[in-house]
Structures are given as structure tokens and as C-alpha cells.
């Protein structure tokens, strides 16, 4: 499936990461955005509101993030491709409805332009401290997909990817950018529409009499309908059976929750996107994602000048976590140095996968600016001692 060429701004542009998210969404066929202004994400809805009258989309500025995050689910069941964008405190408010989208298997995209927290924190400055919230923020067991772009180009590419993954797995996909990536301007190449591949919604071909709204098909993912097609479905956030009927029993809960989790876990190798460059003679493996990886690439060069050879792992899909990649890398017992703009989140995942086979070091940062390369080098020197 290809996007409508009239909506795709094919060409080479100088764009902010946030603008690239907007263009990525439009290229992906997004035609519904609900949002509430919050720094540093606001320029996404500003550009959306300007562009949508000409791309056939509907933008609505809601009264808060609670309503924005559920309006997205409503729009999807109405047949739209939908997204909401936010940051920090707004992301916290969206948690319950991310859980609803996961429970009702509603394909949609949430963008979190991360800023420093907690609370109001650093509205205009970056952070990467929402990564665990992205994974675990809503109550109960569920699994989402989260992507971390490191440049405006990746903001564009990964927004399309986010929409595609959400349709393939009927799951909310979280695009975890940050203030730095969102507000840096770089070259962004937007390909011709016929070179962009879009995943269509998994609409059922069965008639209403044979259709079950939550009966798993390929990859444990059920097929979908949209309201108004005559299927008379019931969609509920309550634990439900294959018909969508609420069934409040441990047995039904077990079947449903296991499938919600496994449809992502089992398909992790297919969902996986990792940039990996670990030469055989590496002394240390640097782990980073999003904006932090830009610093890590510089640090890698600085370390080489000191005679330390560093490999790189950069998860682009952070959730589900690419466990296999880290387990494999840990086998040679080279230490991991994790560079992230928080006081320790993804480092625990790395440590878990290393399982004692390789030491794991964190370069903590409370947010507000990127890491100082010297702080990372200090930990690298300690790690390779």
C-alpha cells in the first residue's frame, strides 16, 4: 500500500525533528490528530493544523491529554489512522488510555517528545527518563512497541514505521523522541510516494456472522472492523473473550493477557531494529539510543585516540527490548557502558540480559542537556581497566 502522492512532500528538506514527525505521519496516511499544547511537542500539532486542511485530515485541539489520548482510539474505530503528541506531564496523563488502546488492540501512535522531569521539570530541555514509563506506565500487564529516533531523518522514517507496526500488530506504538531531536534542524529526505511502503489495516474479510473481534489470526493478531460496517461489535476495556464480551474470570484474563503480551514478545525478532557495530577486537560496548547515541558516536572516536576500541549497540526499537542482541554480545564478557539521559532505566534491561557474563556501567544524567563526552570517557576508562 502506498501513500497518496498529493500529501507526500517528496524532496530534500531542512526540517526540525518535530516537523519531520508531522510529515512522517502524513506520509503514513495519518488523517486524525488530537492534541493538547505542551512544550516541547507543540510544533508538531502546529504544523499538523496547518497541513491537514490540504491532506484530508482532521485535527482537533482537545481540552487535555486525557481526552486527546482516548479520542485517538475513537477515531481509529471510526476508520481513521490516528496519532496524538505530547511531552512529560501530558505523557503521564495519557497512561490509562495507552492501556485502553493496548487492551482493545487499537492501532495508533503516541509521540512523546521527552523533556526533563519529574513533574513540570524542564519544559524546554531534553530528557530520556520516560523510557520505563513507556514500557510500564499503564497499570496491568501489556506490551507496547517503542521507537527512539536520533535525528530528524529518523523522526520521519520511524513515524512511518510506527504507524506500520501499529497496524501489523494492532498495538499502540510510542515514538519516544526528545527535545533535542525534536528541535534540531537537519537534512530530511522525503522519498517519492511510490517508494513508501505502508501496512494496511487488518480488516476482516469474514461476514458478520462468522467474525470474532478478538479471535487471533496470523501472529496472534486478530483482524479488525470499523464502526458502521454492520458488525455490531462490542469493544471494552474490561477483560473480554474472543467475541469482545466482558468475562470477569481468571481463565479469560489469562488467555487474553498472555496473548496481548505474546503477540509482541513472540514477534520481537520481526519487530527488532538495532544499529550494531561490534568489531571483534572491541574492548567495550557502548549502548545508547535517541539523542544520546549522537554523543556516543563522538565518544567512540575520542576513545579510539586513547587506544580503547568501542563497539556500539543502538536499539532503534527499544520496546520490545532486543534481548537476544545483548545476550549474544555479553558472551565475550566485554563490559557494557550504557549512556542514557536518566538516572538508570535501559541499563537495567542491559544488565538483565548480560546476566553476569559482562559488567554493566551506567553514565547517569538527570537531563537538561546531552552528556558531556568526558563523563562518558571516564566511565569507559574505568570499565576497561
Amino acid at each position, binding site marked *: 500500500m502506498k501513500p497518496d502522492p498529493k500529501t507526500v512532500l517528496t524532496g530534500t528538506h531542512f526540517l526540525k525533528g518535530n516537523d519531520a514527525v508531522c510529515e512522517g505521519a502524513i506520509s503514513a496516511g495519518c488523517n486524525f490528530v488530537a492534541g493538547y499544547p505542551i512544550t516541547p511537542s507543540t510544533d508538531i500539532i502546529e504544523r499538523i493544523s496547518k497541513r491537514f*486542511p490540504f491532506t484530508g485530515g482532521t485535527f482537533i485541539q482537545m481540552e487535555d491529554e486525557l*481526552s486527546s489520548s482516548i479520542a485517538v482510539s*475513537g477515531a481509529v474505530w471510526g476508520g481513521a489512522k490516528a496519532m496524538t503528541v505530547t511531552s512529560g506531564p501530558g505523557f503521564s496523563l495519557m497512561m490509562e488510555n495507552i492501556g*485502553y488502546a493496548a487492551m482493545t488492540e487499537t492501532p495508533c501512535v503516541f509521540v512523546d517528545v521527552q523533556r526533563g522531569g519529574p513533574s513540570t521539570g524542564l519544559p524546554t530541555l531534553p530528557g530520556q527518563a520516560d523510557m520505563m514509563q513507556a514500557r510500564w506506565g499503564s497499570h496491568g500487564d501489556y506490551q507496547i512497541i517503542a521507537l527512539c529516533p536520533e535525528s530528524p531523518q529518523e523522526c520521519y522514517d520511524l513515524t512511518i514505521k510506527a504507524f506500520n507496526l501499529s497496524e501489523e500488530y494492532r498495538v499502540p506504538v510510542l515514538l519516544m523522541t526528545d527535545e533535542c531531536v525534536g528541535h534540531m534542524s537537519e537534512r530530511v529526505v522525503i522519498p517519492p510516494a511510490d517508494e513508501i511502503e505502508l501496512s494496511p489495516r487488518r480488516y476482516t474479510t469474514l461476514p458478520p456472522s462468522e467474525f470474532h473481534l478478538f479471535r487471533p489470526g496470523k501472529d496472534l493478531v486478530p483482524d479488525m472492523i470499523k464502526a*458502521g460496517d454492520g458488525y455490531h461489535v*462490542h469493544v471494552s476495556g474490561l477483560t473480554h473473550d474472543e467475541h469482545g464480551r466482558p468475562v470477569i474470570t481468571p481463565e479469560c484474563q489469562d488467555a487474553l493477557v498472555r496473548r496481548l503480551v505474546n503477540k509482541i514478545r513472540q514477534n520481537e525478532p520481526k519487530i527488532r531494529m538495532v544499529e550494531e557495530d561490534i568489531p571483534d577486537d572491541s574492548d567495550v560496548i557502548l549502548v545508547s539510543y535517541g539523542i544520546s547515541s549522537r554523543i556516543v558516536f563522538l565518544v567512540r572516536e575520542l576513545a579510539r585516540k586513547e587506544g580503547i576500541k568501542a563497539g556500539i549497540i543502538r536499539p532503534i526499537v527499544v520496546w520490545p527490548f532486543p534481548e537476544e542482541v545483548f545476550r549474544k554480545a555479553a558472551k565475550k564478557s566485554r563490559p557494557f557502558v550504557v549512556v542514557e539521559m536518566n538516572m538508570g532505566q535501559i541499563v537495567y534491561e542491559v544488565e538483565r540480559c548480560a546476566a553476569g557474563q559482562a559488567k554493566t556501567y551506567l553514565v547517569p544524567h538527570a537531563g537538561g542537556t546531552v552528556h558531556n563526552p568526558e563523563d562518558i570517557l571516564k566511565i569507559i576508562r574505568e570499565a576497561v581497566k
Partner: protein
Amino acid sequence: MSVAVSNPIPVNPVEKYLRMERIPHIWCPGCGIGTALNAFIRALDEAGFEPDKVCVVSGIGCTGRVAGYVNLDSFHTTHGRAIPFATGLKLANPELKIVVFSGDGDLIAIGGNHFIHAAQKNMDITVICVNNFNYAMTGGQYGPTTPISAQTSTAPWGSYQAPFNLPKLAESAGAVYVARWTTYHVRQMKKSILEALRKKGFSFVEIISQCPTLYGRRNKFRDGITHMEWFKEHSVIKDHPIPSDINLGFRTETIVGKFLDIERPTYLDAMNDRYQRIREEKGV
């Protein structure tokens, strides 16, 4: 004693709009939500909409279970968020007729902000609010509509906060159709729901209901009938009263009626109009 029951019993005409395999519903004996649902279904039948194009959206709570019983595309959303979900649904597919059916706690307390903003935008949805004066699903706590002096599980000495006047709230926020009835007024309730369904824009029907198990029990309405008889005796029908005159009190007169029926552009009409003008200006 003669018992005249035809055999076989013909099908109740409401059944085609219900998921009969889910009946009996969860509501207590004597509860008014079933009566409100009944009136809604009959209004829907009379309105003659294509059932495939009608959606019911509910939030959480006793009334929030309505979505699970209607044989339509139906959505049981998160607590308080039925209206913004309906907003997304409507904007994505404007040909759908969307009805939000939920309780007073869901729509007015946790969802109160969405209620006023959807009314302000004149979102083209019908909101049916069953007001039973308390949070029933969780055991009868006081809520945004509990009258002063009424007892609830969290106001054991009587409530002391002024309740919302929902028609006044809806009107001042921008609704184009506002009515209030009690569960005693079944025919009027059905007529108002029918008018609300046919109205373009944000239409609102408040249905004051007994809750014998939780609210009634604590406030000397021993069963559903007792409370309905009280509604019968103490309701006064007024058309277009002054909104501030229709406050609900504890064991005071209840003003019911159709309070508002006006015209103004819906959100979608206004948006499409604006988008169209801009596209023409830019020659797109």
C-alpha cells in the same frame, strides 16, 4: 384468578436492539437504568436510523454497562472518557450517529471537563446521562449530583456540597438541546431522547433515576417504586424555565421538561466550512 399469557409469547420489539445473550443485565431489581435504556431503544426504533450506523459509547459505572447490552457498534471506554472517545469516532466517520450513554459520576465528575468542552464545540453527539445521585458501582459514594443532606457511604452525616445543576451546565457550556425527566416520565423521556437523536449538535438528556440498593436505601426510599412514586408526586413540568431555577435539592420539588432547543453550527460543519474556504483561497 385468570392468567392470560399467550403461547407462544411474541418477541418483544426491543429485542432486536439488544444483545439478548447478555440479558439479564447486571442492574439491581428496582434500578432505573434499564428503564432509561428501554426508552432509548424505543426512541431509536422510532427515529428509524439505520442500526449499522448508530454507535453507543459508555464510560465506567453502572450506566456505563449500557454499551455492553445494545446490539449496535458499542464502546465501553475508560472512566470519564466516553465523550472524547465519541468525539474521535464522530470526526473519523461523520455519517455515524453517536450516543454517549453514561452516569452522572462518569460524565460530570471525572469526565466533567470533556462534557463542557464537547458542548462548547457543539460536537454532534447525543449525551444521555442517568443521574442516580451517587456512585453506585463502587458502593454508593457521594458524587457531583448528590443533594445537600443526602446520605451516602462517604457522606454518612449527610452531604454538604451543592450539587451540579446539569441542564444549566449543559446550556451554559453550549448544548443545543437540553431536557430532563425522571424514570417515572417514560413517555416524555422517550420523546426527548427521540428529539435529541434527531437534533444536529450537542444534545443532552438528563434522566433522574432511583438507585434503590445504594442511594435509596440510605435516604428513606425503600425500593424503586417508592422513589418513582416520589418523582411522580414531586415533579413539575416546565418548558424553558430559568436555568438557575431548576436546581435539584434533597426531597424538594424537581423541575422536569424540555429546557432548550436551539440551532447553531456543529464543530464539523464549522470546520469543513473553514477548511473549504481556505482551500478555495489557496486554489487547492
